[in-house]
């Protein structure tokens, strides 16, 4: 059995039971995601940049719905609204919706292998972006270019990586028998 040594590098299989996440770890990852969102980018990097905060929120809503739910997502969205200087409530509404959708789909999403999870995450992130677009339309914005759909897709591509990193502290220590 050479595979178990590579285990931490691949996402947990649906059958694997994870330890409960520690609250401070959840808070830390949320702060780091906010930090990544606040990085000053421009040009191509800005047009590719996924919403890290939405990704991390989505992960915790799926894995730890008892800690992170609609309320936390909404509060985090408010902070993001201030950081981006957008209308108050725009990100909050989008994240609250995302958290609800995650809670609704979580049992199904977890049954799939990582790449199929990523496809479902792409749909959720695109819906979230569409909601923001709707809010902006009401405010009288122009139709954005097709590149508006790129960041959610990049985010979905990053999903397996995000899962591996975020579930790493929750992997149970391997028993000696397994080695």
């Amino acid at each position, binding site marked *: 059995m050479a595979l178990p040594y590579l285990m931490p590098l691949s996402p947990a299989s649906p059958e694997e039971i994870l330890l409960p996440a520690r609250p401070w770890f959840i808070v830390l990852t949320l702060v780091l995601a906010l930090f990544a969102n606040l990085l000053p980018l421009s040009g191509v990097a800005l047009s590719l940049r996924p919403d890290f905060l939405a990704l991390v929120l989505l992960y915790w809503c799926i894995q730890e719905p008892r800690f992170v739910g609609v309320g936390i997502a909404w509060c985090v969205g408010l902070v993001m609204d201030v950081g981006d200087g957008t209308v108050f409530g725009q990100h*909050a509404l989008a994240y609250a919706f995302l958290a609800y959708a995650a809670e609704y789909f979580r049992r199904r999403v977890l049954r799939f292998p990582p790449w199929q999870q990523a496809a479902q995450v792409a749909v959720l992130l695109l819906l979230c972006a569409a909601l923001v677009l709707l809010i902006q339309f009401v405010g009288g914005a122009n139709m954005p270019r097709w590149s508006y759909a790129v960041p959610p897709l990049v985010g979905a591509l990053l999903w397996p990586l995000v899962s591996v990193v975020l579930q790493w502290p929750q992997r149970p220590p391997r028993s000696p028998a397994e080695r």
Partner: protein
Amino acid sequence: MRHIQVEPPAFFHRGPSPLTRLAFFVLISLSMLFLDTRYRYLENIRHVVAVALYPLQRAAQVPSEAMAFVGGYFATQRALSEENAALKRQLVEQGAMAQGAVSTSNENARLKALLDMRPRYHGAATVVEVLYTGRDPFAQKVFVNKGADAGLSPGDAVIDAQGVVGQVTRVLPFMAEVTLVTDKDHAVPVKVERSGVRSVLFGAGAGRLPELRFLSPNADIQQGDILVTSGIDGTYPPGLAVARVASLERETGQMFARITTQPLAGVDRSEYLLVLGHASATPARPDEPADADAAKKTGKGRRRGG
């Protein structure tokens, strides 16, 4: 036949259901959206959150600043000396203009004194650095590193070395938000430098060039004309360069000419900007006389009657 209601006992009670919570927060969000766009009631909350967020925002600048520092350390001697030469040349070129400007402005002051006009406002100017460009794809904004602490206020004009960049639209305790002239429906009152035709320049949103609306097809304007601020609104001081006319379509069937312009300032490039203190040169609006309403009504009545 009746169905037996099967409800699992609430062993693990977790408060209201997700759907209830979602509905609650959606309602709050919608009312906040409404309050913020219509009345701007929520600025205080925004300030509090902004202060809490400030350390993290500054920390997020560190990686790019470090990269710029390392890049600057390894800048070649040749690049620096070339830049130095270019700057010296520019200084000499502008020196001639500046010397001319002193005598011109003296002359202007005398003439204005003769005409008993108010002197042109020379307010405080603050140099600011762009922290980051807005990440909202629907708005053209940049965030700068000074705010209420440096005495900025909403409505201040923002320029760079080439021309108008935009105006301060929101002042946070340590930062300010500058809306660029390319933002959708951002209006700058301008006039054509060559002919003096007045108009208003409207931004058209991301990736599109600002345009002049409501100019008749026979207006005296040509491709390549420079547009400068007219100073009529009291926000932008008069005479700042704004844009160059990029394309011009005069169709006889249309009411107005289609005129797109290219901003002169490095709207999306400049790192350092200058915030001009609010132009208080415009005299205060005179008070309406107490019986203004009555006078207006009778005036209207008279006109109608006559």
